[in-house]
């Protein structure tokens, strides 16, 4: 950019800004008054939420082994037990939009969209935005694209957050399907114990993602029990699906029993256990 253009740009900006300052006021006490009022309000709100959270929830004790949820959630859950995944993995509310993206893009190939394309590109766009949108006029009527982006990005984020906050129906007991023979297999109890339904759909319930739908078995492996065993034990984790490596917390026999149930869901009849 030529020196002349730079000067011109500065002059135009400075002239406009000096004119706005003419209409303005000293920081103290005018702007500082507004700041003080809002800051006090915010701190009061934080204290209020802390009080409400603590006053309406209760501790874990003999009568309430899983804690007592209040209006703003529990004070804490059970101590983490790396061997048993008893709850569905739920992030803080401000990560729910990412969590929902994981549910939308499930297969490893699509997962790239949820993990890379969306967050990374948006982060880069956020950082360089002022260098992309170089228009000088700040009035909304002169920034149709800016306004469109400024309204649609929050709308999408809010929609994803709401969708992500709708809790899936996690399974309890051993009735994972309508087939009592499958439910009686030892693997069915293990599926509930390991919390598979926190991420996967089963015939009688579970989550519509991030994991794939298992209500008619595995689309990827069908009745290939060996493939299922490897997948559940460590291949899923190694290939970066986000699924934990259940081989770390289950014996090979238990993994085989789980794989047997997934294979049986495919045919809706009990498949023989393969070791």
């Amino acid at each position: 950019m030529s020196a002349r253009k730079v000067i011109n740009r500065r002059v135009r900006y400075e002239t406009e800004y000096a004119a706005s300052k003419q209409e303005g006021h000293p920081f103290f006490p005018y702007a500082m008054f507004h700041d003080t009022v809002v800051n006090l309000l915010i701190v009061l709100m934080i204290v209020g939420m802390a009080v409400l959270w603590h006053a309406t929830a209760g501790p874990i004790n003999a009568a309430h082994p899983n804690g007592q949820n209040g209006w703003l959630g529990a004070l804490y859950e059970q101590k983490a037990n790396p061997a048993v995944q008893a709850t569905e993995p739920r992030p803080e509310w401000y990560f729910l939009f990412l969590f929902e993206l994981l549910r939308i893009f499930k297969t490893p190939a699509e997962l790239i969209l949820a993990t890379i394309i969306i967050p990374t590109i948006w982060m880069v766009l956020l950082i360089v935005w002022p260098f992309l949108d170089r228009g000088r006029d700040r009035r909304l009527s002169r920034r149709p694209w800016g306004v469109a982006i400024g309204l649609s990005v929050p709308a999408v984020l809010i929609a994803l957050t709401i969708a992500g906050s709708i809790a899936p129906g996690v399974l309890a007991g051993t009735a994972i399907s309508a087939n009592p023979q499958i439910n009686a297999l030892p693997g069915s109890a293990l599926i509930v114990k390991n919390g598979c339904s926190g991420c996967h759909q089963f015939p009688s319930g579970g989550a519509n993602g991030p994991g794939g739908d298992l209500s008619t078995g595995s689309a990827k492996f069908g009745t290939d029990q060996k493939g299922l065993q490897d997948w559940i034990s460590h291949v899923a984790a190694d290939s970066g699906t986000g699924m934990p490596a259940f081989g770390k917390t289950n014996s090979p026999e238990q993994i085989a029993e789980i794989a047997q149930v997934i294979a049986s869901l495919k045919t809706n009849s009990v498949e023989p256990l393969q070791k």
Partner: protein
Amino acid sequence: MPIPAPDPKQVALQAEDWIEYRTGFATLIRKFMFRKVPPTGWMHTLGSSLLTVFILQATTGMLLAMTYDPSPNGAYQSIRYITDEQTLGWLLRGMHKWGASMMVILLFLHMGRVFFYGAYKYPRELTWLTGSLIFILTMMMGLTGYLLVWDERAYWASVVAVNINGTAPVLGPFISKFLLAGPVFGAQTISRFYALHMLMIPGAIGALIFVHLWLVVKLGVTPWPSRPLPEPEPQLQPQASAPHSRMPETVAGE
């Protein structure tokens, strides 16, 4: 002979002069307080609220750190101790927990205000840039802080988050290995998350806030856009050393 009682006004003036002569703070504060700003309103208060909440988080965080035990066996016990037994510990933890959510909400609101006012535009690009780095780092504070409670929910959410992160190409696996600090989630992981959460990330955020605020004061805040930019002034001649020099006299002396 009785010593005359000192005049309090004189004492105050002398004290101010003592400090001013040695530090220049009095002038600095006067310049900051009485600087002229364009018309501002309630929307301009979100940035200062963020500063307040950041200071609140730092303070409650330091107080929590006095009791919290960053180990797989101690973490959960110390969280329960703070919540159920320590005097006002529940308030400390509650304020830190809900302050974090408030921080994220305020970040979005502040970004929205800056966006719709066009306040990231020339010459405030770097103010926005430092702000977006602060935003990303604050989200990382949420991620690293969540695990520290070490209950079921925190543990498994973090396992999934780290696994997912590992799927990112190129840097993903490195970052995941760095976060885990070992083959599985354990003692090393909790130390690493703790160091990130209470030392490294907040240090970086603090430094960035300083730069951010420096720019805000240097450039002044942006009022609601209501006026078109003035036409270029053709009679102005660029000076020899422009554009690196300061503004030409005619403008700077306005």
